[in-house]
């Protein structure tokens, strides 16, 4: 009944599409897409720009910003790929992976993967008096005294900040950062630490 009609339609559409190509510009600019940890790596880099550490935190003007990854590393090589040779506040980055809480001391930024949160209290004790920007992945982490949570919401990441914890670490967060963040407070249970 319909015979070879589909084939004719194929060609007419193909023709239209070809026509379209020749008219349309060749701008096929692809949007950047990222996996969760590529995005988190980019966030770690950007966060460094919006945080003021006390002057005494760094040994000298050339000391790098050390990003510590505690326990099992979910980034793979993403952190190195994303940050590359970039600098923030004229400082290069150094990435340190470790699994003993006491090794947390030398970091300026410390990432606690969600899978390692049960050991968070041990880490927090080690760095209680230090200016370490702690970054986690859940709102529970932020409520338990962490400073920043990079939390997936639908298919994006959101930032949650605990200002009490930042203050205790003597870190100053820029208003630009706070402008795009949700604010959460330490819960009573976390307070005891």
């Amino acid at each position: 009944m319909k015979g070879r009609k589909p084939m004719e339609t194929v060609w007419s559409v193909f023709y239209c599409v070809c026509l379209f190509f020749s008219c349309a510009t060749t701008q096929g600019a692809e949007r950047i897409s990222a996996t969760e940890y590529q995005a988190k790596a980019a966030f770690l880099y950007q966060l460094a720009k919006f945080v003021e550490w006390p002057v005494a935190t760094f040994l000298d003007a050339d000391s790098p910003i050390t990003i510590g990854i505690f326990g099992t590393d979910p980034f793979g090589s993403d952190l190195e790929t994303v940050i590359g040779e970039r600098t923030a506040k004229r400082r290069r980055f150094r990435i340190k992976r470790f699994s003993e809480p006491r090794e947390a001391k030398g970091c300026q930024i410390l990432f606690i993967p969600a899978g390692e949160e049960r050991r968070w209290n041990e880490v927090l004790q080690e760095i209680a008096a230090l200016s370490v920007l702690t970054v986690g992945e859940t709102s529970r982490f932020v409520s338990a005294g962490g400073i920043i949570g990079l939390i997936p919401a639908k298919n994006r990441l959101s930032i949650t900040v605990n200002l009490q914890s930042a203050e205790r670490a003597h870190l100053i967060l820029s208003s630009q950062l706070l402008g795009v963040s949700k604010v959460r407070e330490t819960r009573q249970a976390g307070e005891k630490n």
Partner: protein
Amino acid sequence: MAIRNSPPAGITFLLILISLQFHTASSQADDLVPRQPETSRLADLSLSDLLQLTITSVSKKEENASEAPASVYVLTQEDIHRGGLLSVPEALRMVPGMDVARINANQWAISARGFNSRYANKLLVLMDGRSVYTPLFGGVRWDIQDPLLEDLDRIEIIRGPGATLWGADAVNGVINIISKNASDTQGALISGGGGSEDRGFGAVRYGGKINDQTYYRVYGKYFDTDDTVDAAGQDSYDAWNLFRTGFRLDWKPSSENSVTLLGDYYSGTTHESTPTNFVALSMLPFFQNDLTGGNILGRWKHSFSDASELTYQMYYDHAERRSSAFSETIDTFDIDAHHQFELGERNEVTWGLGYRLIHDDLMAGSFSTYDPDSADRTVFSAFAQDEISIVPDRLRLSLGSKFEHNQYSGLEIQPAARIAFTPRPKHTFWSAISRAVRTPSRFENDARQTILFFPGADVSTRLDLVYNRELRPEELLAYEVGYRVMPRPDVSLDLALFYNVYNNLGTFEPLPASSLSGSRPPVLIIPLQFDNGMNGETFGAEVSAKWQITDHWRTSAGYTWLKMQLHLDPSSLDTTSELAEGDSPQHQFQVRSLLDLPWNLQFDTAVYYVDRLARQGVAGYTRLDARVGWRPVKNLDVSVGMQNLLDDRHSEFGQLQGVASTEIQRSFYGKVTWRY
């Protein structure tokens, strides 16, 4: 395990594959695969750009799925691409717990948790929010579901009832086929190829940008599938071709609003043959179905705040199917609105309203009639659900119900309670109790169909299916528990157990026989009326695991065990329905491997084992698929796919319900995709 006709070539090939995998896995460790260049540019995005960045990762979606209190499995674009399967029904083989049996070149029987058949009616399938569950018999016409696979974002599969959100017919599962946002398919794509069974296929897509807020794409595709063969190796009459064209437009005028408009049109043919024991004098053994149709869908999302979002969706769908045996035209108009908002700190409420109008024109063929042959039906629905976080991040309870009114069985209430306990991140225990119904179809309510005819010298006998306007819906009460864990970032495990109790399952009850007057020889008519004379239980376990062994080698595995126990009511005189226990495999097993090799090569393999179908005399089979992909330059993908490597041919489903089943052959294809 029954490996039939395993030729030496197949085994040799398998050995080569295995040795190759071990060899490359060990030499891969220090091989640096070039990263996507844009990855390093991520760090240059501003904070607010980063917050807008859509995360495309597998792990993200799985993570969402990993906290859901249901059996959710996500086939990502990469799974679909690397599975090497060329259509949506075939791609569903990769989902642990799904039962996919290819009946012939253009027909599939697809179900989850039992009750599989060509007219499997307990699985709801949605294509970008549009239901493709046909109201005629309550199932899916797989021969017209062929989106451009490259434009799919993902396929989400929920095993178990989803009626609280999706309404009647989401009894044993829901499949959501979701296409990419137009902004993610910018540029041109041209692909084409051919092979031994998939004789020829080609697609063209172009995605462009109107302004910073508006992106679009248009595409066209065509394929032509060869006849399969019957048990004797002779060609059957089941070839299939389909042309489809469509578009999608995404407009985001502001951060609070987004609008999506999409549509498509298709036209094609399938060949169908009636099994010989079905052929009545008046029936044609061979006929061609002409398929045409199209649809258009619009969706508007508006967010009042971070915590409140309203979605309106409207679609119109037109489907025609004509053959010498029968012809049908179905028009569906559907409008749906739902609103999601946070109530206080702990409640996330979703509620919605829906309306659907279905108009059909059914032209009686020689062996079936509808009374009336044209009808309008409406379905009204409302639902509400509250997700309560009892202990934040740890214990969530979700309560909800759908209230749906249809003209055949009246008001249906389908509630569910689900609970998820996350003692530690990446460990989730969940449990659910839910009710779902499968409402009577137009066929069951209004049709009369001759299914068998035995000509005789003195008297001929005819078996007729007869409608029942008093038919009640089939009911399910489902109990589920599950556990999901990611013990390490590279390993994930998923376990689900279910116990389903069904009531009012469909049966065929004989009515008093009558004889057709005035014919010679006289015809004795035995009417079988649709009824609800059966109940039953099914239970089973579904386990799946994923393991990323190295950066370059990912594997996954799944095992499904299913037991069905059906019981006829004492008053029932049905003789066949209980046998449906033997239509679904008791054991299914699969292993998949995705391996990245040096020189931009990919080598992907999958093994599927499906147990025998007791009722149908279909032997268990093991199927091996392989794919080699090569990307010589960034814009070009070349791949070769090989399917059913282990045997010349095998049958996956038996001869039931008036369609000739055939044997699925070993097949090969080559494909080239170019994008810029």
